[in-house]
């Protein structure tokens, strides 16, 4: 059992604030990237009718960060999307810390397990 009670209401408010901040930051990055992309390539013809898969630079976290740093609009948008995907992950990590602080081993285990599954999905097997 936990030694100290978890202040759930406080934790929930913090998780809510964290999620909103993450979405705001992600949307801002995506908007900047969008402006850049449309400015540079707005007149080009596009189609998404045929699936070809994204290049490696737009798939893995480090490669995406490098592409964004080079000033590519697509890279910046993808970095924003990556931040968006990382937002719920950060929410789980934040909850894990809260459970660790009150020595709630059961829910520390639950949150760490979810965190591991999320990390696996994002980083892949390769």
């Amino acid at each position, binding site marked *: 059992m936990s030694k100290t009670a978890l202040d759930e209401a406080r934790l929930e408010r913090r998780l809510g604030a964290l999620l909103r901040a993450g979405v705001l930051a992600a949307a801002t990055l995506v908007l900047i990237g969008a402006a850049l992309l449309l400015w540079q390539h*707005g007149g080009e013809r596009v189609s998404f009718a045929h*699936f070809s898969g*994204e290049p490696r630079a737009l798939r893995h976290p480090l490669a995406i960060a490098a592409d964004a740093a080079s000033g590519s609009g697509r890279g910046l948008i*993808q970095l924003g999307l990556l931040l968006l*995907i990382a937002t719920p992950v950060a929410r789980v990590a934040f*909850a894990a810390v809260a459970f660790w602080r009150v020595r709630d081993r059961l829910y520390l285990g639950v949150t760490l397990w979810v965190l591991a599954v999320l990390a696996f999905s*994002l980083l892949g097997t390769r």
Partner: protein
Amino acid sequence: MTLLAFTALIALGSFVAGTVGALTGLGGGVIVVPLLTLALGVDIRYAVGASLVSVIATSSGAAAAYLRDGYVNLRVGLFLEIATTLGALAGGALGVWLSPDRVAVIFGIVLAVSAVLSLRAPARVAASASDRLAVLLRLGGRLPPVAGGDAYAVRGVPGGFALMFGAGVASSLLGIGSGAIKVLALDRVMGLPFKVSTTTSNFMIGVTAAAGAGVYLNRGYIDPALAMPVMLGVLAGSFLGARLLAQAPVARLRLVFAVVLWLLAAQMIYNGLTDHHV
């Protein structure tokens, strides 16, 4: 079509999808995927990836509002996220393996079922006492969520867990929040109060979709030029929808949209079966 025109068209369509999604309570995903594939000819794999991203945005963007009131059952949500994230991994693998036509047919079926579920009034059977597993996991809560609130019990943990795994599969295979399935698990199977079920479902949607989006991102299914207008459009639309919800004739609107959803579902299934381009 030029990128500029395509972006504007998709942003507008996604905005409408986000508004309708919030008004019906179904979420933007179930509307934006048929819109992208049927109306704009986007490959369903790109559509699902872009839609998943918008699902994370709407769920997380609204989170502060529903977490403030304290109805979310944190332990139930976190525990069942084990099921939804594992389901999302499985659904992502399935999405990579299945042909796009099959995915379109499955999407149509889930869409038709969701439309029916959105029309039914909540009729829950409250749990009289928590079962052993629920006690062990300390899943019970109070409503209203204050010290003096009435305690509510939780039951059916294994059944709810299994259904949540299915919700995770549907979410990442089809690019939807699968809130209807989540509420079904929490409300009907586990006997949670309806208000707790809907808010806890919302709370879980972002994490579930993040697991699916992670798989799609590193498989190269998320195209920034497509996902950008979808995410921004659905996000803005869902905020408008949430505002309109207070004064809208919700019951009548849901009936109208249910008919629209059935038509979309039929078209998705037809295209998938007849090898039309989806």
